[in-house]
């Protein structure tokens, strides 16, 4: 049903709506990829913006400076983010809990600082503007379908990963890390692999977003982005696969709606966030499951 809606949207929706849903799809991917470490792995990755931004900038730079063909750019963006994840993960996974959250946040802010200052390479706080799309993709609708396709493909990959033995191990780690280690599983290595996979898909999402926005900006790497994606996961429900996607949809919808009505959208977002955090523990999916179960 959702599929039908997504596929037929351009027929009756305005270009603005198409672009909005496009954005939701990209962030859905970003959120689901993040949830691999959050909901399935049981960690608190607060630096995911680093991968999202890295993918965005990588894609933009490759396209603009090196003229690399688009499909390769996307894959390269993912691989680059994955490499970044290897480095960051190697150092961060030494710590757990809030300390892991802090160190991932710290790394992502470091990358933000470097990108912000390195004007000659990244455009600094102006960002990388004017990322070109091949003319076949330039129309909003064309890119929308491409994006949907890529996002769907990635989600299927992620779903496969989550349903595989690897996915089960991650969840075991989440439930009881010590016990999983006793059973003989190298917890750190599995978390690192998960972190890298997560980073790869976050990078792809970032690349897709850079193409959508025709630019890569430092906001992509800044901590609000990291926190927002975690929020999307929580809102949608971390213990389900599609929950984060739902969360992404809701958050983007809210932001779009609220900011069109009032200049003071920050406070409303904040209040909504606070209310949700206070009163809706399992996220939307949790709520639905409760209703069904009860």
């Amino acid at each position: 049903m959702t599929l039908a809606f997504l596929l037929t949207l351009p027929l009756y929706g305005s270009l603005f709506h198409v672009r909005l849903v496009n954005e939701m799809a990209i962030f859905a991917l970003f959120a689901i990829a993040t949830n691999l470490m959050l909901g399935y792995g049981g960690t608190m990755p607060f630096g995911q913006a680093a991968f999202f931004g890295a993918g965005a900038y990588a894609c933009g730079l490759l396209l603009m400076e090196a003229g690399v063909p688009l499909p390769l750019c996307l894959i390269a963006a993912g691989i680059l983010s994955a490499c970044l994840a290897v480095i960051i993960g190697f150092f961060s996974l030494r710590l757990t809990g809030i300390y892991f959250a802090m160190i991932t946040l710290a790394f992502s802010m470091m990358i933000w600082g470097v990108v912000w200052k390195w004007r000659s390479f990244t455009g600094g706080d102006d960002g990388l503007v004017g990322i070109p799309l091949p003319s076949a993709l330039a129309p909003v609708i064309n890119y929308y379908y491409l994006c949907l396709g890529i996002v769907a493909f990635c989600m299927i990959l992620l779903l496969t990963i989550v349903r595989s033995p690897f996915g089960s191990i991650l969840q075991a780690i989440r439930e009881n890390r010590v016990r999983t280690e006793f059973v003989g599983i190298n917890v750190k290595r599995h978390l690192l692999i998960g972190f890298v996979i997560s980073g790869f898909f976050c990078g792809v999402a970032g690349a897709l977003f850079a193409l959508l926005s025709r630019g890569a900006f430092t906001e992509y790497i800044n901590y609000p982005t990291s926190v927002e994606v975690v929020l999307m996961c929580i809102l949608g429900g971390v213990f389900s696969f599609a929950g984060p996607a739902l969360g992404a949809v809701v958050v983007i919808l809210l932001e779009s709606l609220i900011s069109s009505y009032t200049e003071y959208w920050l406070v409303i977002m904040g209040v909504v966030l606070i209310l949700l955090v206070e009163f809706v523990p399992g996220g939307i999916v949790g709520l639905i499951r409760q209703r069904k179960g009860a």
Partner: protein
Amino acid sequence: MHPLGVTMPLSAELFLQQFITGLSSGFVLFILASGLALIFSVLGVLNFAHGSFYMVGAFMASTIVGLLAKTGVSFWPALVFGPFVIAILGGVTEIVLLRRLYVRGLLYQLLLTYGLILVFLDVTKAVWGPRPRTIPRPFGLEGWVSFGGANFPSYSLFLVVMGVLIYFLLVGILKRTQLGLRIRAAASSGEMVSALGINTPRLFSLVFFIGCWLAGLAGALAAPVGSISLGMDASMIIKCFIVIVVGGMGSLFGALIGALIIALVEAYAILFFPEFSIVCIYIIMALVLLIRPWGICGKPLIER
């Protein structure tokens, strides 16, 4: 041009001046970061909104100064009362919003404090307007003091003195009072403390109150320096965060060292590498994370 990019002649005088600049902003940073560290050690929450309390503290100080402008002693009441207003704000926030999230887990608490940032930003904008404001230095501290052949703003020296006072005040409280004992115990093990019969929720509220008091104080102290603007929260929370990472999570002395290092590095980096002064700080953070991720004064961790 000088190979290192220095655009002004480097002299002992400049060196000394930057030292005092760095020292004074370092102590303000320490006061702010100590609040964050305190909240973190005891409650285990990284209060993302700490910078917001700081910002509101600065704006509040400007309001008090404005109200009392006629009396000629406007700054000191702001310094004395402002932080308490912020502390009360913090206490209320903790009791009403944060407390019920302790059972939910850390993630929700973090998200809540992030939500607070958003709320505070817009409320500040609504109450005080979007434009930056400034307040003058307090009477008696507008001038300069000279020694060592250089001139230093008196206010900077005042900040250093305040910072040192607050440090010893905090150390004194922690080491010599019942409250301090409880705080240290809670920082060490929250569960044990509760089992020993200490009213943990009240302790948490009190610690949050003190942490926000420190944030408000830092804001009030920083108010006469530079301008008071809506972006203050973001820039300071990042620095605070770096201080805690560098100095050691949960250590007061670590917060002091971290703050001074960060501020001094920034003060000197601006001289030598004006373009990359931010990166210098991040490089230090990177080094600490790579070599000793629990910070200079932190302890290698057991999971909380």
